[in-house]
């Protein structure tokens, strides 16, 4: 995307909360939504004399995320202190990683307007989250429940050139992380947070411009809006002869604008140094192999499989693999049906419609879904009945084949019987017929609908259409 001859250069810093049961340096629970300051202990409250002990699961989870994004995993890494004062940071330093992160030099592939594109991942490191400040009339209160919740920070290369690419990168990153099971990636609850670094330059230039960093972007829509606004703001500023200042900017979701928060001059000198309380993290080849083998087949590979083996479109493949639960479900059902492509469509059109937006369990056993696909593909039922069956089974489990038999839901393929129905519908709707003759092709649709209704939705829609087309042609 260009504007006045400029393009944008985007790099993302994504913070992902790891869903370990306990915090990174103590055994407090990490569960979201508890009463303030109930998931705390002297360690995560930074009391004098307490010491951090690294939760081994955090390293495992971070390494899994690194492996899933094609990173090189450090055999030796360490934790560092990032020193700054803020009331939500009890120790007045955050334990993070500075020069030896766990994972480096990775990438992931996205679909962009110009086709497939590879986005580099500079590094992934582990760190602890800070607490939360709650402002009210009485002043500012501190909730330390989130202090010490484990995070990974995933830093991308400045490889994205549009808001759409940034969102595609985030969607893919989110899908991959969900596959590895190391985070639930809920933007609303803050378990996936994203800072956008954006600069602009004249198309064709090699040098990067001065970048700004935008914080607090907690939805894909806000990210798109913020990028769009900031891109235009920077270009217009440069065109007016102004210079861009390196600064942190806050996005206001109400106005859709970004505004300066603090400039580089105000930035802290974090005085990073190796945390003397924590020994280095050593990753053995054996442990690395174990972690590698625990990573499920990732969405890109599955998508390719669906296209090649089942003849699904790339688009439908992308939809089915966006969450591991639906991909697993599709694969379980596909193994039991002769009509996997039809099954894919059924899941995308019906199951996705019934699933709540945040996802969840699909209450229909994959075997039953396979049977519905089989019956549809074999002409035993029509697609409307398939849809109806999914709805019925969603509420109460049953054998769909028996259900079709017992409730007489089988498709009526008897041409003679359907011809009678069609004749009756034509006779009863002279106006529709006349409309059709006048060139209103829509009128034929109404007649098909009437005929379907007369068969309680069981008629073979293809045969009915043929019969109606024939009748209308004769008139």
């Amino acid at each position, binding site marked *: 995307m260009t504007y006045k001859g400029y393009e944008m250069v985007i790099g993302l810093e994504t913070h992902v909360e790891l869903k370990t049961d306990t915090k990174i340096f103590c055994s407090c629970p990490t569960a979201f939504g508890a009463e303030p300051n109930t998931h705390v202990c*002297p360690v995560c*409250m*930074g*009391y*004098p*004399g*307490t*010491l*951090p*002990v*690294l939760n081994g699961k955090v390293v495992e989870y971070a390494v899994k995320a690194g492996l899933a994004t094609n990173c090189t995993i450090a055999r030796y890494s360490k934790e560092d*202190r990032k*020193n700054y*004062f803020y*009331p939500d940071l*009890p*120790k*007045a*330093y955050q334990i993070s990683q500075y020069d030896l992160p766990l994972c480096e030099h990775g990438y992931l592939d996205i679909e962009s307007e110009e086709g497939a594109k590879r986005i580099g991942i500079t590094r992934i490191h582990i760190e602890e989250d800070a607490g939360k400040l709650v402002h009210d009339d009485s002043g500012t209160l*501190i909730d330390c429940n989130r202090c010490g919740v484990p995070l990974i920070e995933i830093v991308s290369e400045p490889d994205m050139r549009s808001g759409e690419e940034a969102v595609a990168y985030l969607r893919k990153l989110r899908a991959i992380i969900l596959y590895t099971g190391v985070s639930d990636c809920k933007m609303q609850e803050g378990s996936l947070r994203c800072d956008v670094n954006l600069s602009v330059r004249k198309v064709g230039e090699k040098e990067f411009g001065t970048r700004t960093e935008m914080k607090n972007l907690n939805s894909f829509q806000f990210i798109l809006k913020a990028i769009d606004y900031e891109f235009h703001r920077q270009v217009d500023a440069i065109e007016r002869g102004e210079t861009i200042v390196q600064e942190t900017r806050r996005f206001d979701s109400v106005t859709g604008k970004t505004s300066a928060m603090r400039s580089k001059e105000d930035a802290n*000198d974090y*005085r*990073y*140094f190796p945390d*003397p*309380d*924590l*020994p280095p993290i050593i990753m053995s080849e054996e442990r690395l192999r174990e972690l590698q083998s625990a990573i499920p087949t990732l969405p890109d590979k599955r998508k390719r499989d669906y296209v090649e083996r089942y003849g699904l479109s790339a688009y439908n493949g992308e939809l089915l693999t966006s969450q591991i639960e639906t991909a697993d479900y599709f694969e379980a059902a596909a193994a039991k049906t002769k009509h996997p492509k039809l099954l894919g469509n059924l899941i995308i059109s019906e199951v996705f419609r019934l699933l709540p937006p945040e996802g969840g369990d699909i209450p229909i056993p994959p075997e039953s879904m396979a049977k519905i696909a089989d019956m549809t593909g074999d002409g035993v039922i029509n697609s409307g009945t398939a849809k109806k069956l999914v709805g019925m089974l969603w509420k109460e489990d049953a054998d769909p084949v028996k259900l079709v038999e017992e409730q007489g839901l089988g498709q009526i393929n008897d041409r003679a019987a359907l011809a009678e129905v069609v004749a009756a519908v034509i006779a009863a709707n002279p106006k529709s017929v006349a409309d059709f003759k006048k060139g209103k092709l829509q009128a034929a649709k109404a007649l098909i609908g009437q005929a379907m209704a007369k068969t309680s939705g069981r008629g073979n829609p293809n045969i009915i259409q043929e019969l109606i087309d024939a009748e209308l042609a004769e008139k």
Partner: protein
Amino acid sequence: MSDITAMTLGELRRALDAGELSSAEITESYLAAIEKNDEKVGGYITVSAEKARAAAKRADALRAEGKAGPLTGIPAAIKDNICTKGLRTTCASKMLGNFVPPYDAHVMEGLNAQAVPVLGKVNMDEFAMGSSTENSAFMTTHNPRSLDRVPGGSSGGSAAVVAAGEAPFALGSDTGGSIRQPAAFCGVVGMKPTYGRVSRYGLVAFASSLDQIGPLTKTVADNALALNSIAGYDRRDATSVDRETPDFTAEIGKGVKGMKIALLKESFAKGVSGEVKSAVMNAAKVYEGLGAEITELSMPSLEYALAAYYVISSAEASSNLARFDGVRYGYRSENYSDITELYLNSRSEGFGAEVKRRIMLGTFALSSGYYDAYYKKALQVRTLVMNDYRSVFDRCDLILAPVAPTVAYKIGEKTSDPLEMYMGDVCTVPVNIGGVPALSMSCGESSEGLPIGMQLIGPAFSETTIYRAGAAFEAAEGAYALERGAF
């Protein structure tokens, strides 16, 4: 029955086991000694008489049930930077003047499990920064051997109360000599164990990579006995070492025949007084007489250890002490109108001058643009010192060295020149930089009748050998604290 407060841990234990004494009696004797003498010594910031009495009662009950451990019923004094649940832990700082920890340090759990009565919390340099205990925000501690002199520091309270017969043993902490130097100044025995030997959980951190808790006692055997009860792996301290803890008393009495003891050329460099030098040289002769082989070796990196120490310890302290911000606990200024002022005023009013000096020094050393020249360089020196120790210990079993360049000096004598005070740590800091263990004990007396200390330094995890050599010296020359007695 001899004076209870003059007895060693071993004697108290035997008397308790024999039913000649109860923990209640012992505890009362010590509380009485505190009552009588601490006004002059000024060792205790907090005396916890009631808690001590309750623990003594529990100890006597445990003993009656046959469940007594080695230290059950024998009271202790605890340096005030070691967290004690429900008992004020101040670090001798206004900043933590009102701080009552809701948890015990690991070492306290070990002592409490044996029902060790805690007599109270003892004075120190604020946040363990200092070498004379003159940096306490609360009080001056006097050296019981000569009341107008400093007890050394930072564990000056721990050393003074043991020397004064106000506690049979005490716990201190040693970051750059803070156990060994006051032990030398007060004529008691102090051990800085191998880094990782004793859990730091609950020790208010000064310099995390150097801090280590250790015991101060009247005799070497007592010291080994006390270390037995506080050493060992603790999963809450990632720097504590997961290896079996030996019985530190095991080799006491085996003598030093055939042991190779080295004198380092650099240990006797500038600043070490003639009296100290000759007392240590004399100790070498004693060892030679006991059958040890004395060799002279060199360790060139020692020269840089002091500078590296002040960079590393101050850098870590600047970060460790940042949490004292007046927000959640500790001192908060009454004078602030926003968060920045709350930070500034709480820290300006809550910390003393020496602590602020170290925070500034450390902040500077870690600052962007200076990190490589100071902190990184200091870490390189540290690697050098560690390697040098390894190669020295390839050629000897132990190093014999002075503890401090001089004997205890007068209160107020060195407070005007911090750098001169820092120079006093030149003999002790290399041990912390190297992470190795060292014992401090008396090896003589100055012309003014003040104790002179020597250090026995060994390779990592060689405490048992060190105690063996220390005990051999003590058997030949007598235990200073027992011979000189208390008040």
